[in-house]
């Protein structure tokens, strides 16, 4: 009992120490940047948030859209993405719930157990509808750049507007995002487009869909580039102004002939001299690269062809009648139809066309000649020779080989005034002369090499022997021997129209032969001759292919015993002819030139 009493008299502790904290909760709340209650959203949006002046150690928040959590974080300044793709059009709630530590300094605060919580709700409206594209009122070029005038914008319910640029092939070449200023001014300066004939439209879009206006086309002038020959190696490249010259700084291009050189060209138009050689005989393209701020921005192929492109391409032969001042072109189509064209002697434009007949094979055509007496065309084929009247522009007569020798349906048939000559097409065979009218055989010879005859058979060469017609038949005149004593066959030979001279040769050795005096002159300059032709003035015109000097044509001047030249392209698939101061390529090109002494 005593101890119970003693224990009852225990020690009494003092009251707890009480810290009377005066606490004022912070004012203000979470701040959403770029977002306000009532905002209308037509695209998803990144929303930055922050709590100004927060010094607390603890923060936790979550964001809900229509009670669905879309974000949570413990970062008091960050951003979240309000994704509206799946939301219906109309009103929605964005709720931000967050807690921060109280920062009161109390025991609970210090123990991370005292928070202030808040919930803020913002409303917003989802609008996925889109305005119609406002379109373009006009497009024009001013001082080398494009100005696009926009229609009035009556409905601005779009997120972004673009200027869409199409090239002339209908491909979209550029999309330019329009600035607020451009939309306000209703004018866009397109400083990027450089291609011809651009078309413009306006595209408006939001996050969900887009609308495109009609295209408005802009017809631009074309820049032209021409070549003008200065001499054997040099030419001028002349360019006109590019219509969109202000949209870039310069052109750059590589000119290739024998080797490649890089040049630049002023878009305002320029004349430059290129001294690295050139050639005639095909259509050329330069790849012009647009240079802007030192960078390439695409390019385009520009036709830069020496000479003029003719209306007929890839024909077989062209011949000129000086007295008629007409050109006649024989063309074989792909299906072996023979077409005859008459070209104006000055403009080179087609004046007449006649489709003659079809042949079996392309190489059934042998030659087209101009009869110096009648000015009619003689067309020699395998199996027939045709006289084409240049006056009536129609076939005058046809001489079929089988009418003279039924065993020779495919012999090369030559009309030679009073004679018809049938030559076996293969390299060795018979050559038989017939009286044109009586059709009787008057002469025959076995050939072992090429056969050549003058227009009226006054002279012919067979097996390297020159023969001359006399009153009783044909007589041997001489053997045409190689000046260096070689025994190889003659490679080419032509007679002139007066039966006064001929030119023949063995690639590197060419001989000018006077038939009246039997006097010969060596022609030295042409090298590796592939083709030989007389001009309308009976001057020899060589096409040669030297292994190092390249392809060239050479016009021989008998008086000076020298030739003038021009570099040309490939000689195996095209022939070159020289008439009336113009060189023609059977590719379908011509150029007026006097040729040059290198």
């Amino acid at each position, binding site marked *: 009992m005593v101890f119970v009493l*003693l224990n009852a008299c225990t020690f009494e502790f*003092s009251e707890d120490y009480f810290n009377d904290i005066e606490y004022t909760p912070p004012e203000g709340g979470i701040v959403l940047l770029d977002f306000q209650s009532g905002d209308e959203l037509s695209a998803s949006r990144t929303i930055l948030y922050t709590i100004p002046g927060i010094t607390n150690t603890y923060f936790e928040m979550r964001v809900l859209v229509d009670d669905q959590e879309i974000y949570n974080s413990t970062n008091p300044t960050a951003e979240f993405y309000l994704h509206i793709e799946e939301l219906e059009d109309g009103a929605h709630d964005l709720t931000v719930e967050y807690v921060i530590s109280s920062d009161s300094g109390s025991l609970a605060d210090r123990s991370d157990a005292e928070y202030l919580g808040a919930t803020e709700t913002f409303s917003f409206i989802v609008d996925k509808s889109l305005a119609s594209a406002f379109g373009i009122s006009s497009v024009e070029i001013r001082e080398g750049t494009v100005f696009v005038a926009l229609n009035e914008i009556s409905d601005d319910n779009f997120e972004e507007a673009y200027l869409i640029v199409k090239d002339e092939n209908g491909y979209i070449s550029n999309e330019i995002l329009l600035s607020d200023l451009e939309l306000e001014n209703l004018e866009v300066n397109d400083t990027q487009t450089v291609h011809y004939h651009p078309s413009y439209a306006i595209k408006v879009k939001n996050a969900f869909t887009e609308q495109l206006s009609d295209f408005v086309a802009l017809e631009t002038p074309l820049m032209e580039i021409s070549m003008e020959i200065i001499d054997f190696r040099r030419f001028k490249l002349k360019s006109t102004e590019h219509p969109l010259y202000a949209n870039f700084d310069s052109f750059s291009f590589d000119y290739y002939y024998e080797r490649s050189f890089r040049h630049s060209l002023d878009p305002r138009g320029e004349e430059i001299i290129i001294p690295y050689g050139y050639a005639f005989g095909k259509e050329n393209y330069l790849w012009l690269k647009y240079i802007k701020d030192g960078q390439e921005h695409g390019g385009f192929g520009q036709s830069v062809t020496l000479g003029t492109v003719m209306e007929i391409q890839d024909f077989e032969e062209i011949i000129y009648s000086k007295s008629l001042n007409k050109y006649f072109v024989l063309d074989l189509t792909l299906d072996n139809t023979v077409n005859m064209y008459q070209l104006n002697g000055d403009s080179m434009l087609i004046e007449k066309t006649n489709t003659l007949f079809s042949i079996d094979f392309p190489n059934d055509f042998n030659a087209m000649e101009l009869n110096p007496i009648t000015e009619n065309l003689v067309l020699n084929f395998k199996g027939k020779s045709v006289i084409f009247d240049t006056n009536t522009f129609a076939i005058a007569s046809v001489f079929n080989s089988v009418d003279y020798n039924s065993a020779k349906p495919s012999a090369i048939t030559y009309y030679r005034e009073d004679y018809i000559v049938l030559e076996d097409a293969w390299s060795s065979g018979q050559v038989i002369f017939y009286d044109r009218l009586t059709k009787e055989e008057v002469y025959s010879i076995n050939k072992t090499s090429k056969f050549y005859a003058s227009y009226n058979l006054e002279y012919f060469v067979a097996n390297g022997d020159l023969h001359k017609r006399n009153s009783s038949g044909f007589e041997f005149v001489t053997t045409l021997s190689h000046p260096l004593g070689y025994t190889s066959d003659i490679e080419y030979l032509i007679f002139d129209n007066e039966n006064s001279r001929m030119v023949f040769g063995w690639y590197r050795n060419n001989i000018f032969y006077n038939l009246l005096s039997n006097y010969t002159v060596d022609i030295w300059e042409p090298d590796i001759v592939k083709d030989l032709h007389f001009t309308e003035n009976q001057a020899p015109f060589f096409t040669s292919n030297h292994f190092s000097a390249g392809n060239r044509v050479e016009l021989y001047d008998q008086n000076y015993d020298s030739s003038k030249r021009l570099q040309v392209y490939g000689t195996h698939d095209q022939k070159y002819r020289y008439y009336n101061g113009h060189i023609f390529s059977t590719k379908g090109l011509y150029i007026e030139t006097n040729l040059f002494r290198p």
Partner: protein
Amino acid sequence: MKKGIYALIFTLYSVVGWTQNNVSIILETSYNTFAHNSLSEFQEDFIRDIDLVTLKVNDDYPANFGYALGVKVENINTQFFVNYNATGGKISYSDFSGTLRVTELLKGYSLGGEYQVELSNNNDQGSFLIGFRGFVTFSKLELNSYSKIQGSTSEETIYFAGRDFGLGLRGIYDIPISIIKLRLHAGYDFSIGGKLIFSDDRDYHLQNNNEKAVKTGWSGLRAGLGIVVPL
């Protein structure tokens, strides 16, 4: 401890029975001061260890009333006694959000004997005595930590026990009133504190931050009143 107390009570009754009429029962109360410096430092260490908030010292083992029950055997001028003292330390912090509190309730049960020398005896006015005391004190420390933060409460109490030995000297003035005497007394007890052993595992004892044993310090002045009932 309880065994010891029962033993003491048995002894007292034995003595009473053996001495017959030479025995007085004394009930004393006293106001005591203490010197629990070690426990005070321990409390200060506690404050330093809690850096969440700054706790204040509410109680620092202050002076307190104590009680004693004694039996004086007149033949041998010796008073046997059992004494009870209690004091405590308290540090606390509280605000609107909660409370942190550490209390250390310290109780001391002493058993001892006092040899009393009568210096004067005036039957009318009372007698004056000098007492030489020796005692052993069983200390019990009840360390309670309590926290309540935002409605979340946690509380834990652990116990330590120690044994102290002491000597004391005091003057006693007994004034006869009717058949009993009123006793006035004043003196000083000197006590050597022992380690406070952790009750749940006697291999451990209470230490301060410097890893020194925390000891009780019951030394102090004693002054008070008592009633002496001769049997």
